[in-house]
């Protein structure tokens, strides 16, 4: 739940960066012949609307009506008393709401006289909203416009990258501050230490998974006592930018750290995940290696990718490698990576990880 810092710092994310993203979006929409684009947001899936406007809902749902010409309109589930806060923390100025979000969006589309309407990430749009659009807009052509969002996100801007780096710093520094204190604590106590360390560094949200013992798989914290053989997976959001790290609680075995570096080197957009797994298995440092690639650029953590095909440049992913080392200890490492042309590289240099 986003109960940490949400704010728009104009130095950190200058208005002209958002204006540039919006202009690029309009160009992509024009190329598709779209009058408008509908982009869904909720407290979990807030990344796409955040990318365009910096609006990050602390709960509830919304749909951004993004026109090819003119000002965007936000149809929000949040009540009118927080409209001033929405205006303060985002570029959105026009906000509407109604008893049914889908019907309200349909009403607004009619008012805007859109005919050819793109729906970003149409397949994952909530059925209630999509159904209300189909029923309320019989004269409109509603088309999947996920490619517009993908195209938009394939351009990396320095401001966005800096925010992902800040999230990575919060995760790595917060973990480093308390990691030595975690063994011997219950899962709840360990989570408490991590939460304080991460949120005092201005995390907007966190997801903490712990494997208390070497034989456990990471899960939500509980009563079990965490041991030095355990593992922590920490996902951190900083103002809508999610990253994930995975760390063993004991000192990392240098041989398996080298194995991780090799996996990063081998990771290529379009490569087969299976061949990557096989290659890691042949390295010999880890038994039963598990390789997880998680996409976080749409702003939610632990979204596992089945394939590296079609990974656009600019995507932020996390590469997790786990297994058992030759001494029988559980080992896990995960870092956020930036996908570039033909390769992926860690968001932070080695010395800062």
């Amino acid at each position, binding site marked *: 739940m986003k109960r940490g810092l949400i*704010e728009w710092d104009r130095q950190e994310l200058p208005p002209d960066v958002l204006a540039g993203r919006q202009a690029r979006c309009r160009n992509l929409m024009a190329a598709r012949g779209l009058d408008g684009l509908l982009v869904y947001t909720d407290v979990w899936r807030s990344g796409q609307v955040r990318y365009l406007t910096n609006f990050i809902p602390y709960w509830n749902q919304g749909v951004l009506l993004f026109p090819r010409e003119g000002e965007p309109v936000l149809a929000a589930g949040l009540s009118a008393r927080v409209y001033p806060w929405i205006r303060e923390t985002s570029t959105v100025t026009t906000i509407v709401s109604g008893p049914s979000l889908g019907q309200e969006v349909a009403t607004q589309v009619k008012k805007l006289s859109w005919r050819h309407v793109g729906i970003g990430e149409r397949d994952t749009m909530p*059925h209630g909203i999509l159904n209300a659009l189909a029923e309320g807009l019989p004269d409109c052509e509603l088309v999947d416009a996920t490619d517009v969002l993908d195209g938009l996100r394939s351009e990396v801007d320095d401001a966005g990258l800096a925010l992902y780096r800040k999230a990575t710093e919060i995760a790595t520094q917060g973990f480093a501050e308390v990691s030595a204190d975690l063994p011997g604590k219950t899962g709840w106590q360990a989570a408490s230490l991590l939460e*304080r360390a991460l949120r005092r560094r201005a995390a907007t949200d966190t997801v903490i998974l712990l494997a208390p013992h070497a034989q456990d798989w990471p899960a939500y914290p509980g009563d079990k006592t965490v041991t030095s053989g355990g593992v922590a997976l920490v996902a951190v959001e900083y103002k809508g930018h999610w990253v994930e790290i995975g760390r063993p609680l004991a000192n990392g075995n240098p041989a398996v750290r080298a194995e991780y570096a090799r996996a990063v080197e081998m990771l290529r957009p379009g490569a087969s995940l299976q061949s990557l797994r096989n290659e890691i298995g042949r390295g010999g440092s880890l038994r039963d290696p598990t390789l997880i690639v998680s996409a976080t650029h749409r702003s939610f953590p632990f979204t596992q990718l089945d394939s590296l095909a079609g990974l656009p440049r600019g995507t932020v992913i996390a590469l997790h490698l786990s297994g058992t080392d030759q001494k029988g200890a559980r080992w896990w490492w995960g870092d956020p990576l930036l996908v570039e042309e033909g390769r992926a590289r860690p968001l932070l240099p080695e010395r800062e990880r």
Partner: protein
Amino acid sequence: MTAINTQRRVQRLQSVMSKTGDDALLAFSPNWRRDHVRFLAGFNMIGNWAFALLLPGGEVAAFAEHSWDRERVTRESWALEVYGGPEVLPALAALLGRARVRTVGVVGLELMEARFVEALMRVPNLKIRAATKAVEVLRRTKEPEEIELMRAAARVADLGFQALIRASRVGMPEYEVAAEVEAAVRAGGAEDNFMLMASGGTEVTAMRAPGTRRLRRSDVVISEVTPQIRGYYAQICRTLIVGEPSPAQEKSFDIFLRAQQAALDVLRPGVTIAEVAQAQNRVFESEGFGEYTTRRYTRVRGHCLGLHFDENPLVLEDDPTVAQVGMTLIAHPNTYLPLAGYMVFGDPLLVTENGCVRLNSTDRRLFVAEG
């Protein structure tokens, strides 16, 4: 820790199926509404979505987004069969076919990702319809174990508020205050926490996520802390002043105190939720502040609590729902008043045979942080 009586849970859900005429119930949860699946199958989800299926014979199956998460879900859930990753949709279709389900009531249909609805529509001879409201009505009256878990959550909410008082020092940024509350409720066993806050004076018109504003002497600090224990949320709303309260702040808070007391006095089995809202609003009206009970300034005068922190019915003047023994809700007359800005005050309540009881124990007063 209290365990849910799964046999009773399944029987209650089957009673819904017999009323709606559905052969099976399918729950869908996106990450931000995990309650639908948790009520049906008892597990906390990781990732973007999860399903749970109740078949005609009472068997429960669970479906996780990630195949690596299957083992954890198997441990947490009372489902007999658990599927994960790419096997989810084929397994769901196979189970529905094997049990000869013709009509499935979907809890959370309106939130279900379009691709899943379309996949269900492709299952031969299967009709899907919404069952969200029917299960929502069932969930309003809590089982004894649910009430125990909510009492536990209310105790942790009290701890969270104590942490808020300790952290509310002059110069502390709002987000660091929130970090201390978070650390306290996590140490108390909270899986999650819904929290809003704000600080300042008469310019504060609502709670929202914490910002970088640093607390100042004489600030009003408002917060709702809503920890979740084993799925169940309890919420506390309190107002504190950094340093000595001003006469205007005391006068304003007294109105909130009396308004909430009016809700406690009226809430009992047989009254409508509308009456609970009206009782609170009348106190503001009698002080000449009736305007500030409208939607321009406030959202609701409370809401039900349970597996979700904002369950229906919402405490509004037009809600005809009749209060019943076992309902759990918060009455909070939170709103803006020109006297001292937005203030909040609320406690989690359980409707009993003779009235209602509080589930938490934090004092009912305006708090002062030393600053």
